[in-house]
């Protein structure tokens, strides 16, 4: 039904697409996988009319497909859910869904009708959001769900989802997969990008694998295995995804006592010891990020204390936290983790300027040296240290964020969804990095919505539900369903 042939696309020096192929059939869910920077998003954006191909052709129902603008693409029946959700903070959720196509009665926008239709869509998705609410302040997950409602409302022939589940917790992801199946059964073709192979195998009928902008393989799911797909992606055998290095928990470094912020979290008490990786699990919206934000000093809290090495950490002062060896890799790399227009060097240097100063003046050379050093350590794919990070692919951006914080040589590293949108290979590296450092005495507090990751990495698992700590499980005790039970509110069998 839709085919992409020999697609080529260059950004300055970088060849984002270099002979990509894609063939979509009616009524199928088509997986698109590949490492960070393989060119998945770029390929999808050409379908969406965001990018124009340098060469190559796209046909839609045997006719050449004109994707010269997002509007054209949409009118042709292609709906896209982008990797980075993009809503309108000041508009109501209902209007966010229908923006540009608001339902009309007698030539005027039909507000009541719009609200009703939005409610219907949300119900279909099982989203509990008030259509009248402004989008400002929505969590990433909530934003993602609104984006999906938007795509649904178009009832398009081709629906493209670029890592829609990256920000979703297991249960929400499951709900999404349901929706995808329903769309397929309606006869739509769904393109599904994900770094979680288990999802791809659970959902997709066929899969296309990309590497370095090329399509390296296309197979029916039935006829292949995750191992094989990974080999195609990486071009080599991949070693253990969770290279957990056993490490001895040292003395307690972080202690949180009865921390509370009305409406967001209640009496949170826990500890993290040197050399220990503690995972903070829970459904999206359970307030995990809010907790670590409060610990690091981004948000204030009403009561409770945070102790580092036994002595209290002042509230709402990230600098103090940094000085005490605390680092936070935030959940949202584009808004919180990076200065998108700034260079790789600037980004990775900004938190360690003090160390880069000579006679009180910041030395650009030291800055670049440090950045290059980290770029190599994390196998970063970049065109140059002076290139703005907005040019990097999602995964590579995440690497820069990590580099930036590891450069502070922290004693306590707090990571919020550290591998969101990161490919298997890089994931493995991040995991190795974390556990190696833990082994060398680093205390790690990790928020993750990926249970395999939690189980693979954590020495202890804390589970949050609706702003409360509801369970603490040792590595031995922790299992998928125990965590899910706790997170969803059933009693925990101990």
């Amino acid at each position, binding site marked *: 039904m839709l085919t992409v042939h020999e697609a080529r696309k260059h950004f300055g020096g970088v060849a984002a697409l270099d002979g990509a192929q894609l063939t979509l059939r009616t009524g199928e869910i088509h997986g698109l996988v590949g490492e960070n920077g393989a060119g998945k998003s770029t390929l999808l954006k050409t379908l969406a009319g*965001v*990018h124009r191909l340098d060469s190559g052709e796209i046909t839609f129902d045997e006719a050449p497909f004109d994707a010269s603008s997002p509007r054209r693409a949409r009118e042709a029946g292609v709906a896209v859910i982008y990797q*980075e959700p993009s809503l309108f903070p000041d508009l109501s959720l209902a209007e966010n869904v229908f923006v540009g196509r608001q339902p009309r009665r007698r030539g005027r926008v039909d507000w009541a009708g719009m609200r009703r239709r939005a409610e219907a869509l949300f119900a279909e998705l099982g989203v509990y959001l008030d259509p009248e609410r402004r989008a*400002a*302040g929505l969590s990433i997950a909530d934003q993602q769900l609104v984006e999906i409602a938007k795509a649904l409302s178009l009832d398009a022939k081709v629906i493209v989802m670029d890592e829609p589940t990256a920000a979703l917790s297991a249960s929400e992801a499951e709900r999404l997969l349901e929706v995808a199946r329903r769309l397929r059964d309606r006869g739509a073709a769904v393109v599904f990008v994900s770094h979680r192979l288990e999802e791809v195998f659970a959902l997709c009928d066929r899969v296309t694998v990309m590497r370095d902008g090329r399509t390296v393989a296309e197979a029916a799911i039935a006829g292949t295995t995750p191992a094989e797909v990974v080999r195609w992606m990486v071009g080599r055998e991949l070693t253990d995804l969770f290279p957990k290095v056993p490490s001895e928990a040292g003395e307690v470094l972080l202690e949180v006592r009865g921390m509370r912020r009305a409406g967001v979290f209640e009496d949170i008490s826990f500890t993290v010891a040197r050399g220990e990786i503690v995972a903070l699990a829970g459904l999206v919206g359970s307030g995990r990020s809010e907790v670590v934000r409060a610990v690091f000093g981004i948000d204030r809290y009403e009561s409770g204390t945070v102790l580092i090495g036994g002595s209290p950490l002042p509230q709402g002062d990230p*600098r103090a936290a*940094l000085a005490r060896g605390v680092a936070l890799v935030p959940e949202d790399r584009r*808004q919180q983790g990076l200065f*998108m227009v700034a260079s790789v060097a600037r980004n990775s240097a900004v938190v360690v*300027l003090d160390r880069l100063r000579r006679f009180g003046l910041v030395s650009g050379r030291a800055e670049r040296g440090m950045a290059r050093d980290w770029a190599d350590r994390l196998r970063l794919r970049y065109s140059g240290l002076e290139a703005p990070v907005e040019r990097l692919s999602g995964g590579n951006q995440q690497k820069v964020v990590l580099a930036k914080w590891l450069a502070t040589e922290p004693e306590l590293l707090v990571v919020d969804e550290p591998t969101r949108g990161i490919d298997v290979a890089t994931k493995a590296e991040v995991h190795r990095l974390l556990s190696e450092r833990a082994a060398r005495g680093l205390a790690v507090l990790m928020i993750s919505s990926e249970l395999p990751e939690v189980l693979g990495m954590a020495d202890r698992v804390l589970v949050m539900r609706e702003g409360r700590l509801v369970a603490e499980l040792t590595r031995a005790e922790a299992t998928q369903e125990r965590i899910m039970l706790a997170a969803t509110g059933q009693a925990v069998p101990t």
Partner: protein
Amino acid sequence: MSRLLTWDKILPVLLVLTLVVGTSLDPRFGRGNNLAFVVADIGEIMLIAFAMTLVIMTGEIDLSVASIAALTSCVLGWLVRHGVPIGLAVVLGVAAGVLCGAVNGFLITALGLPSLAVTIGTLALFRGLCWALLGDEPVASYPESWTRLGSGRFPHTYIPYVAPVLIAGAIVFTVLLHFTRSGRWIVAIGQSAEAATFAGIPVARVKTSLFLLSGFMSALAGVVYTLRFASSRPDGAVGYELLVIAAVLFGGVSIFGGAGTMWGVVSAVLFLGALRSLLLLEKVPPNALNIITGGLLLVSVIVPAAVTALQRRRKPTRNKESSCDPDSSARSPQRLPSSSR
């Protein structure tokens, strides 16, 4: 646009060209006497522009600078009229200016109000205080020994007394913006205040101190203005705010913050001053000067845009992306900032 040829690098060239061409066109323009006047005449603008550059770099703006300068001048005058020794009066006047900056800073960072709105308000408030203070009685009882500092020159030279102040300012502010931690912080905040917070940059503190600094530099300008014109009047320096902002933007500073250079601004201010003097010498009618000022401001943004456009033409699709590619637009939020922040 290309790394090599950016607007802030074009400006110094423009400045030199103006001086050379201007002098060859009309020797009177190149005379030390005239250049000395030009330098003295852009003094206040330059002083305020130093701080304004930093403020705009963080993505904020300060429209109250002219009113602060005037208020400083009026406080100074009022005190002198009431028998306070002038030296002390100057100090207190400057203090008043800094206080004004504190008011701006408080309203903007503590209450989280948009700086454009706030400083439109304080622009009126501070100017109003000038009238309340001096009303219809300007002060001119300044001792020659002081006013000479404003309008005079170093003996046996053309160098006006303000010149060293301006040069020192240029050096200090260039270093501050481009070679210190604070400078990096200012740029970072302008690129993304939220990311800056997560990087442990004390955003509120930096912004507050910048508005204080802006108040201080405006106050300084107010003192220079007072001495140069040997008088304090409630309607002094009216409309300077737009002149300064125009100069800073003409200097290649991005109104959205996060991009710009101090040398760009310095050469912009000098260039505008020199050009104006040249045009006046060449008997260009004063009414036409506004047209030229505005035209130049437009040029300063059109030229870079045009250059980029030309580079695009070579790679046909570039601007479509940077325009509507969600991943490549720094301004498309992921977690949407709730407007309460």
